[in-house]
């Protein structure tokens, strides 16, 4: 078993005009997805990252630079991540495939975490 990182790229479709009823339904889909993983013991964790795009750091020594990250509007930010355990990329892909994020137009980057030992 290995751990995998699901990096959820981009804002999915614009939810701002959804009715409360519809918003509840979408949250329900996400919760159902993560609850199932949790019940199967496959969910390690997940967190939302702030929409502000963060900071980009580069350079070293005298050439150190700090700038604002990509803006949420350009849809390049990572909205958040989930960490799961899976038996290889195939299973991890299966898990990621069911994530509602894809259904609503987002993109998921799947990375295996290199074990420290």
């Amino acid at each position: 078993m290995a751990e995998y990182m699901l990096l959820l790229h981009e804002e999915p479709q614009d939810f701002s005009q959804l009715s409360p009823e519809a918003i509840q339904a979408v949250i329900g889909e996400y919760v159902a997805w993560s609850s199932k993983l949790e019940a199967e013991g496959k969910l390690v964790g997940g967190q939302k990252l702030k929409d502000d795009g963060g900071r980009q750091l580069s350079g070293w020594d005298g050439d150190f630079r700090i700038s604002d990250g990509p803006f949420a509007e350009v849809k390049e930010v990572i909205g958040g991540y989930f960490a799961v355990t899976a038996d290889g990329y195939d299973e991890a892909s299966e898990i990621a495939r069911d994530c509602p994020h894809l259904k609503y137009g987002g993109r998921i980057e799947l990375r295996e975490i290199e074990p420290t030992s």
Partner: protein
Amino acid sequence: MAASGEDRVRETMDHLFRQHAGQMVSLLARIFGIDKLDLIEDAVQDAMVTALKKWPYGGVPDNQFAWLTQVAKNRLIDRLRRGRSSAELGEADGVFIAGETPAIHFEGEIAEDQLRMMFACCHPAIPADSQVALTLKTVGGFSVSEIARAYLANEDAIAKMLTRAKKKLRESDVEMEIPASSSLTLRVDAVLRVLYLMFNEGYSASAGELLFRRELCFEAIRLCKLIARHSVVSAPRVNALAALFLFQAARLPTRTGSGGELILLSVQDRRNWDKALITDGLIYLHRSASGHELSDYHIEAEVAAIHSLAEDFASTDWPRVIECYGLMQARKFSPVVELNRIVAIGHLDGPAKALTELDSLGKHYLMTSFDLFHITNAHFLVENGENRKALASYRRALEFIRNEPIRRHVTERMTLLGDH
């Protein structure tokens, strides 16, 4: 997150968000003023979208309502600050910006806010035809698109209607308050009338999508119960109206077939009537019998109860049904009630008797263009063996039918009668 995964899934079900939206709008309107309704609705929507962005990752908070309310309040205060001087924020500013907002709102308090909002939405200053939509939007948490789909109306038209109604709210300085006892009866009646229309729109369905119409019925029930539970505002007729709604709603699943076609009471599968709703209806009917008040809602609820409790169509207590319609007519004549009374007479005394009565009712100017009158007429003509005349009546009905399932029902009947 203490709740198990399964519990959390369950927690997010049952229109909770929609109800929270209505509760938050009412709560914030009471605190910040109903004149800021547009800003308040935007802030509530923002809070909902924020939850959508956050909850999938971190999980659903234990007290969803408190979480959403806090976010909505903060958004609202941000917007008010951006737009106005803080003096204009008044008291609300000090209360909510300085420290942590008390997150606990007692259930009774929330219900009272919604009740006040209902009185505002059904205020005589608001055009009658917008009161239902305004109540659905602000108290019920329905979106413009959902209201439009229930009414089979254009979204723009509903949005414009709501804008006008909210303008009236502001211009007429409508207060969010429980009316003084001198006007309480009239104001409660106005609210009940709106709930009655809301339920009927969902139930009799002159148009619109089935799913969304049903939601109107259950929202009317929820709001009616909210009034019924209020110690000052409640009255026997409120309980009677709740009972009526519940009996009718119990039959909802059997009123339309899988293809959306209309299924008449006589052939509905009574085993599929919702027993829990009927039981609930009986509880409210019982409560409605306290005191001396007898309202139209009482009599209508009794008719609905008779149907709900009859083992099958044949064993319906028709004499009592006819008596009830007679009681209603004695209070205030209505040709529509008369039509119902004649239907009951037809079931008890046979088609010939019904046809005679229909003949004289047909002279009423409202009946000429009333599709159900012609359909009823045709029904009893068929029972009386007068197929040719029945066909003519059905044809007449087709001129006035606005509802697709009813139109299909009628054309099927006509085909059976040999119309090609």
